[in-house]
């Protein structure tokens, strides 16, 4: 049995399965063994189904038709439906809930031969930036187990960074794939809003939610995009526009890259600034013309995002009442309202939701309530218009924007978990892009020395709406120029 499967990216692994050079059954068996061995270490998964994965591997081994992800193990964030698997959103509210159908994106990946190993840990209902708000324990960062992997797609990032799978699905609402990608030394991609179907994704903030992949190579992200993108009759918000043909750039000659000065200034530590300047130099060396642009509303993006997202969350999560959806509290009878519907609902929601979810529901309900909606929600929605206009102005000066993905590298577990505003600040550079619905690829920037530890950092390439391929291609060229596509990953050496 060949034991080096975990060092390959999804594209290479699929090629070797397609050609018969490698056994799908051997790969999936080794993947399951490694995952079960390392699960206690990083807590990347919430549900594993190795029996199902192995049965599927045997079927694929015999298959005549071999898809673009033939026999490739993948992990899926627990807010996406995978038929028969638990998709709990890392919440007590949905603990034990097994999806009776699969999300469109899961169906499309499986149709190309992908094998789902399990559903991954996350911040509860995708509300968090560190992976610590899971009801089932925090995920640890395989690069440094005392640190957070980022969130909310924490388990998906840890699974790929830990070489448990080469490709995983997350969701990116305000940075929930790009930020963990940056903190775990991965490539992550947020598509244009509406590019990829969200049928089967548990809604958090509908005007911002995107299904988004994480991988250890940019080409894997593009492959996942090609497979998942396209209209879906089951999602009316999914775009009907066709994904443009691939763009081929060996370098960045002829392209103009804008560097937002506010994003550069947001970097809080010296090593992160050095790492980002290396990305800028790499862009110049690859032939791009660089211009400085200004996005002054960046400083308001976190406030704007959290007001809009929490309002939408308060509405989307209203359905979890213990009757139509979610766990039902049994111990509400001592309040003198035995069998009262209202008391049952309130008790179920109070017991089922964790503290960060409750905080956001109260915030969103307040911001949308009578007497406050104009001052908070409507005002934020107008600021969002202005954020979009700032990006539109930038596109008159450049083809793409290059900036850091996060203001600082991975934080220590517990470092900010008692200060919501400090946690929200992690999203300072990803939320502007989300508000405008733009595509953004987070690439691996050079490692940074932080508190005596070498940690990953990320840079994001943002393009105009619909130009998903361009952002990925620029990211790929930059990684090649930087040499970070071959970033040494300590987790790869962790033997199962």
């Amino acid at each position, binding site marked *: 049995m060949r034991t080096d499967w975990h060092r390959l990216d999804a594209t290479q692994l699929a090629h070797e399965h397609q050609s018969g050079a490698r056994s799908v059954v051997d790969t999936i068996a080794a993947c399951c063994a490694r995952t079960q061995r390392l699960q206690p270490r990083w807590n990347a998964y919430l549900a594993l189904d190795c029996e199902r994965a192995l049965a599927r591997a045997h079927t694929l081994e015999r298959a005549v038709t071999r898809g673009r992800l033939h026999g490739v193990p993948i992990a899926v964030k627990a807010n996406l439906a995978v038929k028969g698997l638990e998709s709990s959103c890392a919440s007590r509210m949905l603990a034990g809930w097994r999806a009776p159908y699969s999300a469109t994106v899961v169906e499309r990946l499986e149709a190309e031969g992908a094998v789902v190993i399990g559903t991954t840990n996350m911040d509860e209902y995708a509300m968090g930036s560190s992976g610590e708000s899971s009801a089932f324990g925090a995920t640890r960062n395989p690069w440094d187990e005392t640190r957070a992997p980022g969130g909310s797609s924490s388990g998906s990032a840890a699974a790929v960074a830990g070489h448990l799978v080469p490709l995983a699905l997350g969701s990116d609402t305000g940075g929930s794939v790009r930020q963990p990608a940056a903190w775990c030394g991965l490539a992550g991609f947020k598509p244009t809003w509406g590019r990829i179907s969200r049928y089967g994704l548990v809604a958090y903030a509908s005007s911002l939610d995107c299904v988004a992949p994480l991988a250890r190579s940019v080409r894997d992200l593009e492959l996942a995009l090609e497979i998942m993108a396209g209209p879906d009759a089951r999602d009316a918000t999914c775009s009907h526009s066709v994904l443009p043909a691939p763009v081929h750039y060996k370098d960045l000659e002829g392209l103009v890259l804008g560097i937002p000065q506010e994003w550069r200034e947001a970097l809080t530590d010296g090593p992160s600034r050095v790492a980002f300047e290396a990305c800028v130099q790499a862009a110049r060396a690859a032939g791009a013309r660089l211009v400085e642009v200004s996005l002054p509303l960046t400083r308001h993006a976190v406030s704007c995002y959290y007001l809009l997202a929490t309002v939408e969350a308060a509405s989307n999560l209203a359905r979890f009442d213990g009757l139509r959806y979610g766990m039902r509290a049994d111990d509400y009878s001592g309040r003198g309202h035995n069998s009262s519907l209202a008391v049952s609902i309130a008790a179920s929601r109070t017991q089922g939701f964790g503290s960060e979810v409750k905080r956001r529901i109260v915030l969103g309900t307040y911001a949308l309530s009578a007497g406050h909606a104009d001052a908070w929600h409507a005002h934020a929605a107008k600021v969002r218009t202005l954020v*979009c206009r700032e990006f539109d102005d930038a596109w008159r000066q450049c083809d793409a924007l290059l900036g850091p993905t996060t203001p600082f590298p991975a934080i220590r577990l517990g470092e900010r978990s008692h200060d919501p505003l400090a946690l929200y600040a992690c999203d300072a550079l990803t939320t502007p892009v989300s508000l405008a619905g733009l595509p953004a690829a987070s690439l691996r920037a050079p490692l940074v020395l932080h508190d005596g530890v070498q940690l990953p950092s990320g840079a994001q390439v943002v393009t105009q709406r619909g130009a998903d391929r361009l952002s990925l291609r620029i990211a790929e060229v930059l990684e090649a120029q930087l040499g970070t596509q071959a970033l040494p990953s300590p987790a790869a050496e962790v033997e199962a």
Partner: protein
Amino acid sequence: MPMSDPHSVRISDLRNAAQLARLDLAEDEALALCGEVARILEHFTTLQAVPVTGVEPYYTAVDASEDRSSADVRPDEVQASLPRAAWLDLAPNARAGEEFLRVPKAIGDAL
């Protein structure tokens, strides 16, 4: 309506919001949570500095330039769904072979 003064965020309003959101918070949890939300809202008042007169709100990232007039609307025809048993399997108090499920008594209670 002008944006509220940050100090006008009253804990009583936040507790009312918690009730509207159907959360039954114990006294100490309510005070802690509403205090945190008040602090967050105070921080968010910096948005007041952004002038928005005459600006239209932006509630969705749907591309207005895309023709979505007819392509998104499927024919109004009945389509297959999951079998009833698949849904009943998800209910906590469904009985095998029966076409109903048990829920707590609720009729007669005002919401």
